[in-house]
Structure formats: C-alpha cells, structure tokens
C-alpha cells in the first residue's frame, strides 16, 4: 500500500509537471529570442563596418589600391618636414634602416632590423618596431622582410594589444586619439583613406600582412572577410564596450543567430509535439529526434530552400530573370531536352528489361536463375562512370571494339561507325545498362512479397502462366513497377558520371553537366546553376512524392498465409532458348564491359588487341598505383566513406529504434527528411551545400572534408536506414519486452537481445552507405578541394586528362575493392546480405 502522502505527492507531481515543462519551454523560447537578438545586434554592428556587402569589398579594395600612394605621400611629407628631438632621431634611424633595407632588398638581401630596434632602448621598443614596420612597408610594399616580422612578433604582448586597440578605436571612431606609432601614418588623412590606412596598419601589426594587403582583389576580400568581423569586435572593446558577450556576438554574429534560430525551432517543434500528444512529460527520445532534425534542417533543408529562394529572388526581389536567361540559351535548352529524353528512354527501356528478367528469375524454371539474379544485382554496385568508360572503349566510332567487329563482319569500309557512343542514343544505352537493376531490384522484391497463391488461384481458374502474368501478376505489381520505373527515371536524369564521360566529348549536354560547368564559372555561374538545379530538384521531388505517397497508398497489402514456395512456371520447350537469351544479355551488358576495362588496363595502344605485338604492359597499373595522389585520394575516399557510414549508421539505428519501437510523436519528421535527402539529385545537394556552407549562415565548411562527408550522409543515409528499419520490424517487440521483464535493463536488452539479432543488418547498412560513398563522383566533383580529392574524382581526372589505359587500371582497382567489400559483407552477415 502506498502511503497517503506518496499518493498526494504523485498527484501534485502529475499536476505540476506540465506547468514546469511549459515554463521551461517558455524560458527556452525567450532565451532563443535573446540569442537571436544578440546575433542580430552583432550582425548590425558588423554591417555598419561596411564590409559585409559587395560594395564594401569594392570600396576597401579601391582604397587599398590607392593606399600605397597615400603612404608614399605621407612618407614624403614626413621626410620633408622632420620634427626635432628624440622622435626625429628615431625616424632618422628608421629611415637609414629603410634605405639600407631598400638597398638590401634590391640586391636580394634582407635588412636587419634588430640594430635599429636595439638603439631605441627599452620602453620605446614597440613604437620603434612599428615605425620600422611602417617605413619598411612603404619601401617594400606588401612584402615585409622576415627580420621585421620577427621583430613584430617579439613585441611584448601588452604593448602590441594596446597598439592594436588604439588603432581600432580610431577605426571605429574618427575622433579617437591615434596611437603614438600611427600618428605619422594617418594624422593628416581623413575619411576613407584614413580608415584604409588604419586597417592596413592593423593587418600588418596583427601579423597578417599577406592577407591584409595585396594586389589580388579576391585574396584581399578573403582577408577582410576573415578579419573584419573580429575587427569590429576589437573596435567595440577598444571603445570601452569591453564585454566577452559583445565580442562573441559581433565576431560570430551569424553563428549566434543560427544557434538562436535552431533553438527556437526546436522549442516550437517540441511544444507542438507535446501539445499534440497532450503529454507534457519530457522524453529524452525527443532530444534525439531534435538533434537529428537539427542536422537535417541545417545541412539539407536550408541549402535546398535557399537554392529555390536564390533561383526566384536572384537580386532580393522576385524575378524570373535567371530562368529566362537560362532557358533561352540554346545549350541549356538542349541540356534540358536531353535530360528528359534520356531519363524517359532509360526508364522505358530499363523497365521493359527489368520486368521480364525479374519474372523469369523469380517465377520460372530458368536455368541458373540464382546466378543471374546475383549478376543483375551486381551491376547495382558498380560505379556508373566505370560502365561509361567501358562503353566508350566498345562503341567509340573509330576504335571501338564492337565497331571494329561490325565492320569486319559486314565488310564495311574503315569509315567511323556504324555505332557511335557519343550521341544521345549512345548515352541512353549506357544509362540503361546501369540503371535497369534499380527497377529489377524493386520489382523482384515486390514479387517476392506477393502472395503466390494469388497467381495460383488464377492458374487453377484456368488461366495459362502467360495469361496469369497479364491479368494478375502485372496489375498487382503496377505500383511497384511504376515506382521502379520512376526510380530509374530520376536516377538517369540526375546521373552525372555517365553524361560527363560520354556527353562532354560528344557535346551531348545534360542538366547535371551544365550545372557542374556553371559552378566552375564563379559567383554568376552559381546563380545560373541554381536555376538548373531547381528544375532537377522539382523533377525529383514530384517523383519522390508520386512513388512514396501516391503509390505507397495504392500498394496492395496481401494477407499471406504460410510461406509457400511459389509454383514454378515450367518454360518447357522455351527453357533452353530463354536461358540462352538471358545469358546473351548478361554477356553483352555485364561481361563484355568488365572484360574491356580489364584488358584495356594492360594495353599500350588502346586501339589494338591486348595480345598484339608489344601491346601488353603492366605499366599502367604500376604507374597509377605508384602515384602519391592516387594513394592520397584512395585514403580520402576510404576515410570519408568510413566516417559517413559510421555516423550514418548511428543515426540510422537511432531512427530505426524511434520508428519501430516508440510511438513518440514526430518520429516521422526526420524519417521524411531522410527520405527527401536520398531522393534529391546528388548535384543538387552539392550545389546547395556550396551556396550555404561558406559562412553565410554561420557555418563554414567549404573546401573541407566535412562538406563532402555531410553531402554523402544526406544522400546515402537512407540506404543504411532502410536495412536497419526492416530488420528491426522483423524482431517482435515482445522479444525485448521479455528481456526487460526478466529483469534486464534497457541498455542490457539492447546489447544482449536486439543488438545481436540485428547486427547483420547493421553491418549491411554500414556497407550500403560505405560503398556508394567510396566511389562517389557527382557530389565530389563540386565539393572537392586540392586536399580532399577522392578516388572517383581522381579517376575522372585521369580519364579526361591523362590516359585511358591507366584510368582503366584504376577503375578495375576500384571494382576489386568494391567486390572485396561485398565479400566481407557477405561473410560478416553469414551470407544474409550482399548487394
């Protein structure tokens, strides 16, 4: 029996919890508002400095160009009207030093500044040094000699800080007294000239001479961008507004605002969820959901939304100018047409191939159907650009192997042809051979799930196997068939690897290749790229919506009794001919391309047979894999893929648990976002990240490995999640409940029961994220920097700029690694999983 007070306590507690929660939520909301305000205020202060806008950069740049003149004027004035006393001596010393420095620099030596500094004596050391600096700067321009730098570095910290602070207070406030060392430099200057001069001095004194003073406008902008925010903060400190909070908010205003907004969104979302749930008890699972949602909002939704906004509001106001410009340009119009035609044709061809293959493999007594199944699925894990390379070798109009055979066979002249891969149909063919497995897998899976007695009922009703296919199997499969077909369409339309390898030499442009070209054109190009990306994104979103929402609802759920082996349709007299046909298909689509890649990698002259005289070499292999850059990019690929897969699988497991084991409201939100991410074309994801992750929104991961890893995760997280979710859905919750009833804690249950049961799926999920990340090309093409090249991108570069046999060696190397990974996966999961 509970004591009365305990019961009372409980009632009180129950009553109080919602109130406490509500108050806490309110406080958090207020806090987020305060943070946003602080960020906003910081931003305003920063904006006031005139460095945030393009005009600001230009103004300062113009100043910096003129500044040398200003400095020289100053120096002249100084030399012409020297003042008396100690100061004069100092200046003379500095001047003589300057002269010798000037001479030394001209003759290639370096001036020694220590003598002049030493002569200045203690207490004046700092001032002397800055004067030196100033004069040297005048003489040598942006190049400051190393001994001067050394002297600057040796200035006591306190003195240096005071100098900078004084400088900054002058920058911030024209009326503020100039620091002693700067008086001469800036005294007679006014307005912008003076500002520029003070900035120059500051940059120099802050040890960032190269970035602060330069002839290169981009480097200068970068220098200002990097420093200006902090400058403002220092200014404020200099103006006695010394507070760590101000410093923080001004120098990181965007990050602060971002944090505030995220907090506000989280709090509002949480309140909404709690309100909908009518339960105000804090559940730590929400924190998990919110963390995942935050990640996805920031790195996935924000870039996409920003891109759309940028496309429609290029200059701040609504305008369709970008689209008009883009789509009146014939090249883009062609690209658009090509993308749609290629996507559509690939979809039709791919589905027409996939359905009969899936049916033959799943429902008939075709010879070797298990083997064929594995073979068709295998294509799924081959990087598409490798296929494109193979088909280029086979269907090149001049030296393509198949063309050579055909000419031999039909006695054609040596003129190019008859087939040419550098055309739209050529591209469609290659796309089809690489994307039909998508439809094949979707349809096969649906066929496996379909209750075989539905077909048996048709047979027993008197329908022949073929009639059954058309009256029962096909109509029942329609939703899966369409979603498989749409998947092929969107994959083909957003593919970059194949069009970039086949399209560029053949001048067959697609939206993806145009986007990549535009991005390489700089900031105006970025704007144009968004216009194209929006087209691709809308296409993908419509398809995602149709297949995930419309079709999913139409999916027939069939009550399956005991698992009966489906009745196998006897092909009888057709068994041998059909098997031969399927084998032929496999040889053409899979065997020949792989062999081509393999043999090409050993050739000296790609136009001749591998066995021709003096045409066999292993040099391609040794060269490619002997290069440091190959090894570096391989290392990068392995690292990025491993990090993406590991972080991804942790998120996937969390999500699976939330989806399958809890009824927490809102668990569908991250699920939706993850689905959205995987449905977004790679090029679009990468472009969005480029446009938003350069500091504009408080996060700057541009040109780092992080931006690549983030992109990989957004695109491929789904692959891992689906595996874990389906594994978890097959473990009945009672298994876990039973463990908990037996006295095991939640954690112990996870480790002892759930963990071991779903481990194979977790491993599989990890590999399913890892493998596509490992050979990724489309996103890396846009996101790489010189230190973050990956193996896929390296291969593309070799293929385009170096040597085809060498890149074939590399491609085969990649294939071997992927096959090896697949083997490991198969072993690890005891044969349950492989791609």
């Amino acid at each position: 029996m509970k004591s009365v007070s305990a019961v009372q306590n409980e009632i009180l507690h129950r009553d109080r919890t919602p109130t406490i929660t509500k108050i806490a939520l309110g406080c958090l909301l207020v806090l987020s508002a305060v943070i946003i305000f602080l960020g906003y205020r910081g931003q305003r202060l920063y904006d006031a400095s005139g460095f945030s806008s393009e005009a600001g950069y230009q103004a300062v740049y113009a100043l910096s160009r003129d500044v040398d003149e200003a400095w020289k004027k100053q120096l002249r004035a100084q030399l012409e009207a020297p003042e008396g006393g100690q100061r004069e001596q100092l200046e003379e010393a500095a001047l003589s030093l300057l002269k010798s420095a000037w001479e030394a620099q001209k003759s290639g030596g370096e001036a020694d500044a220590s003598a002049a500094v030493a002569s200045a004596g203690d207490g004046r050391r700092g001032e002397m040094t800055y004067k030196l600096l100033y004069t040297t700067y005048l003489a040598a321009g942006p190049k400051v000699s190393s001994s001067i730098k050394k002297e600057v570095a040796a200035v006591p910290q306190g003195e240096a800080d005071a100098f900078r602070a004084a400088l900054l207070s002058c920058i911030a406030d024209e009326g503020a007294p100039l620091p002693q060392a700067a008086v001469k430099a800036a005294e007679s200057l006014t307005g912008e000239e003076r500002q520029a001069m003070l900035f120059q001095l500051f940059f120099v004194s802050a040890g960032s001479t190269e970035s602060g003073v330069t002839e290169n406008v981009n480097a200068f902008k970068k220098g200002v961008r990097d420093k200006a925010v902090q400058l403002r903060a220092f200014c404020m400190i200099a103006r006695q507004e010394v507070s760590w909070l101000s410093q923080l908010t001004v120098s990181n205003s965007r990050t602060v605002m971002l944090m505030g907004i995220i907090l506000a969104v989280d709090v509002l979302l949480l309140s909404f969820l709690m309100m909908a749930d009518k339960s105000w008890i804090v559940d730590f699972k929400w924190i998990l959901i919110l963390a995942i949602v935050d990640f996805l909002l920031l790195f996935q939704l924000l870039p996409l939304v920003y891109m759309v906004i940028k496309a429609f509001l290029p200059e701040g106001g609504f305008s369709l100018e970008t689209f008009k410009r883009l789509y009146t340009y014939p090249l883009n119009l062609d690209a658009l047409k090509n993308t749609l035609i290629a996507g559509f044709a690939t979809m039709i061809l791919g589905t027409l191939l996939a359905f009969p293959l899936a049916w033959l493999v799943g429902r008939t007594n075709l010879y070797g159907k298990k083997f064929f199944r594995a073979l068709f699925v295998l294509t799924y894990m081959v990087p598409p650009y490798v296929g494109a390379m193979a088909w280029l070798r086979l269907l090149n109009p001049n030296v393509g192997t198949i063309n050579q055979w055909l000419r031999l066979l039909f006695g054609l002249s040596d003129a190019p042809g008859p087939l040419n891969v550098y055309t739209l149909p050529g591209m469609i063919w290659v796309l089809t051979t690489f994307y039909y497995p998508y439809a094949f897998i979707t349809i096969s899976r649906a066929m496996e799930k379909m209750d075989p007695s539905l077909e048996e009922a048709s047979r027993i009703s008197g329908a022949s196997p073929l009639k059954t296919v058309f009256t029962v199997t096909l109509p029942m499969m329609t939703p899966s068939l369409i979603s498989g077909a749409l998947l092929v369409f969107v994959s083909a339309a957003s593919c970059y690897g194949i069009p970039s390898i086949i399209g560029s030499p053949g001048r067959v442009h697609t939206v993806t290749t145009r986007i990549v070209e535009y991005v390489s054109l700089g900031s105006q190009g970025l704007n144009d790229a968004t216009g194209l990306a929006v087209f691709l994104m809308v296409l993908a979103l419509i398809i995602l919506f149709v297949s995930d929402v419309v079709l999913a609802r139409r999916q027939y759920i069939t009550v399956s009794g005991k698992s009966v082996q489906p009745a196998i349709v006897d092909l009888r007299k057709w068994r041998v001919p059909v098997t031969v046909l399927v084998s032929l298909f496999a040889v053409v689509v899979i065997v020949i391309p792989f062999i081509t890649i393999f043999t090409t990698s050993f050739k000296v002259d790609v136009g001749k047979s591998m066995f021709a005289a003096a045409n066999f070499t292993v040099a391609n292999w040794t060269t490619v894999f002997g290069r440091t850059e190959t090894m570096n990019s391989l290392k990068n690929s392995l690292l990025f893929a491993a990090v993406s897969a590991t972080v991804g699988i942790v998120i996937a497991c969390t999500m699976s648990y939330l989806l399958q084991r809890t009824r927490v409201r809102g668990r569908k939100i991250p699920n939706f976002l993850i689905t959205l991410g995987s449905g977004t074309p790679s090029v679009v994801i990468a472009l969005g990240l480029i446009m938003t992750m350069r500091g504009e929104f408080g996060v700057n991961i541009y040109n780092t490995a992080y931006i690549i890893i983030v992109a990989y995760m957004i695109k491929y997280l789904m692959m891992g999640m689906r595996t874990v979710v389906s594994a978890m859905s097959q473990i009945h919750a009672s298994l876990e409940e039973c463990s908990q009833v037996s006295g095991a804690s939640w954690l112990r249950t996870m480790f002892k029961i759930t963990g071991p049961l779903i481990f194979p799926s977790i491993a599989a999920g990890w590999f399913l994220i890892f493998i596509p990340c490992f050979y990724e090309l489309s996103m890396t093409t846009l996101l790489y920097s010189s230190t973050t090249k990956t193996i896929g991108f390296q291969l593309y570069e070799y293929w385009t700029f170096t040597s085809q046999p060498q890149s074939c060696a590399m491609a085969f190397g990649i294939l071997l690694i992927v096959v090896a990974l697949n083997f490991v996966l198969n072993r690890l999961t005891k044969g349950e999983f492989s791609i």
Partner: protein
Amino acid sequence: MATVTIKHVTKSFGDNVVLKEFNETFQEGEFITLLGPSGCGKTTMLRIIAGFEKPTSGELYIDNQLVSGGKTFIPPEKRSIGMVFQSYAVWPHMNVFDNVAYPLRIKKASKAQIKESVERVLGIVHLSQFADRFPNQLSGGQQQRVALARALVAAPKLLLLDEPLSNLDAKLRESMRFEIKEIQRETGITVVYVTHDQTEAMAMSDRVFLINRGVVQQSGTPEEIYNHPANQFVADFLGKVDFFKGEVKNGRIELAGMNGQAISYDGPRSGKVDVAVRPENLYFTPQGELEGMLEAQYYLGDVDDCRVRVGDVLVRVIANGYEYAELKKGQKVRLGVRSIMVFEDDGQLEQLLKIQT
C-alpha cells in the same frame, strides 16, 4: 463429379521425404479431409492434386485420366479444379464480381452466362449484395466466401480447400464449416479438404485421412477413426486421451502405478499393453472399478473437468457439469469405465506421439 485416384505417390524435396507412398481413391461426391499436424504433408498432397507440385514418383488420375506421373503432366489450368487457398487469394485489384467471373472469362463464356452464373454462385455464398465491392472493403469471412464462389463458379468436378478457415475467428469458422458442407451436399461435388483442426474434419467429412510424417496413419469415417484408432498417434491426435501402461491378466488389465487396481478387458491382446482412455469415457459411480481421490475440478459450464489421483497416477475425468456441485476436492471417488482402447506396448509410444514439423 470426379474421382481422384492416387497411386503410390511419393514426394520429396531433396532428401526430405514429405509424402510416402500415398495410395488411395477418392470417390465421386465424397467429402475427403486430409488431417494432420502442420508439416505432415497434407498440403503437399493437395498441391499435387492441383498440379502445383509434381510427385517425385507415383501417378495421379482424375476421372481415370492420368494427370501427373511419368512423363505426363497436365498443368493446373487444364485440370478443371476449383481451389480455395488459406490466404483467400482474392485479387485485390478486382471487385467481387470480377474475381468470381474470372474463371468464366478465361473460358470465354458469354456475358449473359457469366452474369447469371456469378449471381447464382454469389447467392449460394450469401454475397449477392457485395458484387461491386473491392476485397479491402470486405471482412475476412466475406473474402473467404468470395474465394469459395470463385472456386465454384465454373462448376468444377473437384473442389480443393487448403485450410480455408484457419484465418477466421471461432464463431465464423463454425458457421462457414456448416455452409461449406451445405454447398457440397447441394452440388454433390467431390471435395478434398486440408486442415489441422480435428473438429473441422470430424464435422464435415465422409472420410478422414489422418497423416503424420508423410504417411497415412488411418483413413475412415470420423466415427471409425475416433472410436477405433489404428494406433496410439491416431488416438492421441483426435480428441483427448490419457495413456496408461498396463498388463493383461486373467481378463483384466492391471494398470501400472495404480496400486494393482485393474479394469476388466475382454479383447484379444495379452501381455504388456498401452491403454488409452478418453476422459469422457470415465464417470463417477459408487460401483466404479477404480478408486481414487478427487484432486481438482474445473467447472467449464457444460462439463466438469476433474483430476482424480488413482494410486500414483493422475487421471483426467470429464463429468457432467451439474456434478461439480456434488463433488468436493479431496473426497474419495470411484470411477466407472465406459470404454477403453488397448494397443500393444512396443515401447515406441513416446516416439510415435511425437509430431514432426
């Protein structure tokens, strides 16, 4: 209506023999039930008759025409059979009318004829008003009746039913059982019915084939196999039964562990025996042959389910419901025996009763 003749049919998947030497003839208009625990091979037999599986050896005739065996194999669609599947297998993309009309459309029957036949058969299964509905708008029982109507519409000579009632709830199962039996009686169709539920088998069948581990243990009318089981497995599988060890001595069977108490026996067996007693064949009477102590009783309404300790053995007795009030736990009782089944004790009882799945 059709006869089905099964000659030495054996079916194995790899090394796993699921059906051994099935050898039987189903007569015209007979209601045959293949009964047995799951995995016993009964569904395999049904699928062989339907033509979804080929026998490994042996022959199958429908109406004396060879349909499976040797090099001959007639595919399911050419066998003129109706079949109802455990999962109903009602096509979700067609409405009730189209589902039922399907076999007739395959046969290219005329529109009028299709309409007439479908309406007639929907009438039989009481679904006339649901013709336009789609399967997802129907309950499980209604879907099952659609499946039944579809199986009957083309007037097949043979109807196969694969555990058709196992996905229904208890009440519905009982009424459907009755309906199926009625339809069979009216149409006179030959029915092969597969189930693991002995009550279904008993209630509907003309002949029951009890199968275990791929072998027919016994066939016969429900009454025959219930009252005269061929072996311990049959006795055990049908109804409730307690087994006791015993020894025949001077026209009585002395039961092991019961302090030498014995029951009278005038059968042919001698020596060591297995005695199978159905609890409803024991009753309380002052003149009873066995003496024991009432250890527990459970009131189930119509009956009183009792446990009586006789010697060291606990014996189950199903008495009439009203006796519950007259008896008291711990009281001394005497048990009369209406009938017993006696089998030779070959030491294999445990092994025999084991159900292989």
